[in-house]
């Protein structure tokens, strides 16, 4: 098991290098916004552009910039380790900003994940157990509704209705846990639910489908015949087998989670990584984009690793392949 984990960790590093290389290619080799010009102000003279280029380190050939970037990333730069450079827009170090924003995005993602798992899976189980009942139909209708709703629309509608019209939730923005727990919770509830709904719906449907299939297996019939109470049959035997594809799905969803979180962060003004990355892409603040992409890639790869380890734990057959 340990060799497997170690090999996967090496792989995380490779993924990081490949992804940053691709980012470099997109944003440097075919730029739509030349950062030196963007941050040289209105009507810059060629001298000013050249000076800005020099200060941003953009006057080296691209391959040299990439190698420098990799070196800083692994060995640190003048701002510390990992060396994430300085932002063209704010002209200050990226690392502390990224760290605080990563925490916020993580809070959003983890909270949402907990919400959708605790909503989606029980609903899926209940629907599977009571097939074709009113509960099943209603649950599936709810699932289908949220599966067809784009996140930005849901977010804007929810914000307008629940905050502006009905004054049920506090507004946008982020209050840190340390400042005031109640306020923090209040501000996070709506973003959590908005982000979670799409996934909850999907997971409800998936759990339902998988559980129905699993419950039709022979060994379930055996368990019942042995006299086990029904809930034990469902939870201990049925659910365990049908959860493995859910785990796989979860791993794949982490990637899209960071993407959807971007939209949620923008709508609810949560100062997370995603919101920062979007602003930076449009502004041409490439070091910030690189930093966010790197951190996100590592985070996703690590999460996938954890998921795969869990999968191997749940399904012994995988361990030995």
């Amino acid at each position, binding site marked *: 098991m340990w060799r497997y984990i170690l090999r996967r960790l090496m792989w995380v590093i490779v993924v990081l290098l490949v992804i940053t290389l691709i980012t470099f290619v997109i944003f440097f080799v075919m730029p739509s916004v030349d950062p030196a010009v963007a941050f040289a102000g209105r009507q810059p003279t060629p001298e000013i552009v050249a000076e800005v280029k020099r200060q941003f380190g953009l006057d080296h050939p691209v391959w040299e910039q990439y190698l420098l970037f990799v070196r800083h990333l692994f060995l640190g730069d003048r701002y510390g380790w990992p060396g994430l450079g300085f932002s063209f827009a704010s002209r200050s170090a990226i690392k502390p900003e990224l760290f605080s924003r990563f925490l916020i995005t993580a809070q959003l993602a983890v909270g949402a994940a907990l919400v959708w798992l605790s909503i989606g899976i029980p609903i899926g189980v209940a629907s599977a157990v009571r097939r074709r009942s009113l509960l099943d139909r209603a649950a599936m209708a709810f699932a*289908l509704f949220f599966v067809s709703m*784009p996140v930005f629309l849901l977010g804007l509608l929810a914000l*307008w209705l629940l905050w502006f019209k009905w004054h049920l939730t506090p507004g946008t923005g982020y209050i840190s846990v340390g400042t005031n727990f109640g306020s923090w919770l209040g501000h996070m509830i709506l973003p959590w639910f908005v982000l979670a709904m799409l996934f909850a719906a999907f997971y409800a449907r998936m759990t339902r489908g998988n559980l129905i299939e699993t419950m039709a297996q022979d060994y379930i019939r055996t368990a019942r015949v042995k006299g086990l109470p029904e809930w034990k049959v469902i939870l201990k035997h049925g659910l365990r087998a049908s959860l493995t594809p859910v785990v796989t799905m979860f791993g794949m969803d982490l990637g899209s989670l960071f*993407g959807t979180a971007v939209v949620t962060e923008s709508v609810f003004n949560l100062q997370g990584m995603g919101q920062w990355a979007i602003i930076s*892409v449009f502004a041409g603040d490439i070091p910030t984009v690189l930093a966010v992409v790197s951190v996100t890639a590592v985070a996703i790869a690590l999460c996938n690793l954890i998921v795969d380890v869990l999968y191997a734990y749940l399904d012994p057959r995988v361990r030995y392949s």
Partner: protein
Amino acid sequence: MTQPALTEEQTEPRLQPPSGPVIAARSPWQLFRSRFMQDRIAVAGAVTIALLVVLALAAPLFKLVVHRGPNDLFGSTMLTKDLGLPKGPNGRFWFGGDTVGRDVFLRTIYGLRTSLTVAIIATGLASLIGVVLGMIAGFRGGVVDTGISRLVDIVLSLPILLFAIGISSVCSTSPNGCLHGLLQPGLSLVIGIIVLFTWPQMARIVRGQVLSLREREFVEAAYSLGARPSRIMLRELLPNVVAPIVVYTSLIIPANILFEAYLSFLGVGVPQSTPSWGRMLADASSGQLFTYAWWMLACPGAFLLVTTLSFNLVGDGLRDALSPER
């Protein structure tokens, strides 16, 4: 010395062909079809999809009837005088006008074409790539498998929205687009982006299926009969993998329609001259326009809901029909 076992033909005398009705075994296809047909709701979904496709194909005919197109501006009649806010439904414009005075209903119908085109082509291409790579990876194993799996890992770790914005910006600024004009800003670029980011899921699923099927007896049997790997993949594995592929595809199509909506919301979708639901939803969201012009949200929103619903119902029905409850 053992005697070869006698075949059944050799032990029993030839029988006369039976008279009366022949009870023939049904082929898997026929079984599947009858099971699917029994699921009323799934059939309803399929019928709805068929109707939508017909509507999409027939969209240009609308132009002949109402004598206006989806890009014609009616600012003088469909926008309020001073602020230029859209006016609501009336006799001619069933779902009112949009921010520039275009017919919302007509644009929704045309948007059906765009959304279906994007979803079907993008899903089709992504599925093709995903199935081929997934099968090869699962079947071959070893280095090939590792290589493809690692590629899948990388693409899944890419920050989708950032890259979509980046690629789209890049390809929009040069006059001829990217890849020597293959990726023009607009429909082809959106399809390209969707294909790029969605093929790995299909590959993973197919690979998983193939991995579990690989050890089954019928594959072993084909091997021992001397079949080439490509023949095994095509004739033995593919039919058994079709089920999850079809189901997954039917569920991914609506997801890709939504993907296009996200891209439009971020400003990297199709240009205005090509109506798309994603763009219409994004426009209805900007400036909280839906709080005033509910029709700009309701029309494309309702169509999107119905389309997604239909595809999901058909997907569920397919899954139920292909692997029935015993």
